């Protein structure tokens, strides 16, 4: 009665054509950011032209609830800079939708923490890219390591399930073990990491940022060791594949998720340039139908084959191609 097939992420053991709707929405609610991280996968800084207005934002919330989509992650940019951030959070939680917030932590004040605790979020994920202020701030321009750490402390103390995300680069990969130990000392629920993605601003800075094969080999050795060390105490989650391996899998078994960018366009997947819908023109249900069809388009499949053959093409992920 229970399909033993089990999967990571939001892959579903049944195909997307057998699902009434997506199981997960990754919503980049704004491109506005108070940092200028060298390794940002979105090149976030300023508002994107034509970001969704309040009416569109709340309409999307309603459509997500109407489609009975169980899980949403809100990110940015810095999502807490969005004027309707807490309205959106309150809407989802009042409709029983599991909600993860991905933030740099700078705006997680005492008051924001209390509200997050009251809302019962699935989790708040804070970016910590170094075990020291110097390393973190070298990568996260305008960011303050201490603010991120203080945000983690506040959230944990308030009983908010807190996660840390760590992105390895040449600048910080040597601190992987120390960051995981720091996460444990902060009492967070888990730490997420994986290979740097060659998209957004990270693609522009790729030569300076990308760790070497030897560094990655050591990185994964450390992760395996730390996973065992913290087993049962803190979740050490790492995605072992890079973007190319991910695409190879996704073109065969697309994820049951939609990626909504700040202007309401719906991307096929982060590392591909294809836009399969636009919420200014299409309902979310139409975007889901388009998403399912888009993965079968020769244009998409051929592009994935080209990227697999020449991985540097993935840096074109933000040179959007509209499929409608």
């Amino acid at each position: 009665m229970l399909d033993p097939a089990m999967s990571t992420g939001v892959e579903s053991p049944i195909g997307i054509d057998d699902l009434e709707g997506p199981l997960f929405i990754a919503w980049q609610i704004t491109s506005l950011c108070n940092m200028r991280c060298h390794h940002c996968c979105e090149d976030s800084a300023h508002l994107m032209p034509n970001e969704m207005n309040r009416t569109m934002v709340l309409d999307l919330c309603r459509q997500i609830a109407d489609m009975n989509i169980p899980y949403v992650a809100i990110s940015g940019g810095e999502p807490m800079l969005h004027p309707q951030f807490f309205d959106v959070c309150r809407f989802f939680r009042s409709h029983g939708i599991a909600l993860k917030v991905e933030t740099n932590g700078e705006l997680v004040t005492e008051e924001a923490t209390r509200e997050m605790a009251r809302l019962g979020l699935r989790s708040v994920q804070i970016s910590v890219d170094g075990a020291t202020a110097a390393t973190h701030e070298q990568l996260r321009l305008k960011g303050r390591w201490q603010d991120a750490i203080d945000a983690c402390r506040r959230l944990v103390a308030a009983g908010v399930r807190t996660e840390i995300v760590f992105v390895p680069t040449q600048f910080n990969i040597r601190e992987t073990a120390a960051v995981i130990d720091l996460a444990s000392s902060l009492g967070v629920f888990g730490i997420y990491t994986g290979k740097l993605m060659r998209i957004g601003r990270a693609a522009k800075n790729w030569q300076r940022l990308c760790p070497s094969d030897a560094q990655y080999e050591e990185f994964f050795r450390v992760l395996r060791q730390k996973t065992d060390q913290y087993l049962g105490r803190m979740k050490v989650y790492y995605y072992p594949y890079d973007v190319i391996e991910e695409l190879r899998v996704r073109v065969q078994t697309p994820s049951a998720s939609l990626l909504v960018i700040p202007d309401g366009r719906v991307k096929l997947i982060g590392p591909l340039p294809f836009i399969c819908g636009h919420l200014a023109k299409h309902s979310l249900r139409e975007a889901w139908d388009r998403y399912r069809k888009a993965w079968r388009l020769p244009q998409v499949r051929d592009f994935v084959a080209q990227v697999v053959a020449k991985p540097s093409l993935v840096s074109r992920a933000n040179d959007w191609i509209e499929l409608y």
Partner: protein
Amino acid sequence: MKFSPNVKVRREKRGSVVFDTLREKVFVTNETGARIVEGIEAGLSPEALAAQLSAEYDQPAEAIEAEVRQFIESLRSNGIALTEETQR
């Protein structure tokens, strides 16, 4: 017995999807499993669930209850969090 708050269930064409959003793992049930899942969501005990299904499927309650318990055990063994809160 109920699902923990981070476990979300959605009815699909042929069964249900059970999504443990905390572990980010998705499970799929067939139609019979979907009926059991609905009973769990309603807070029914295994006995009450078996009695309900027994009447619906015109099968002996003992056999149905064994299947219900086996299903619940497979949920637990796959790490899907269930609380003991029960209503009869």
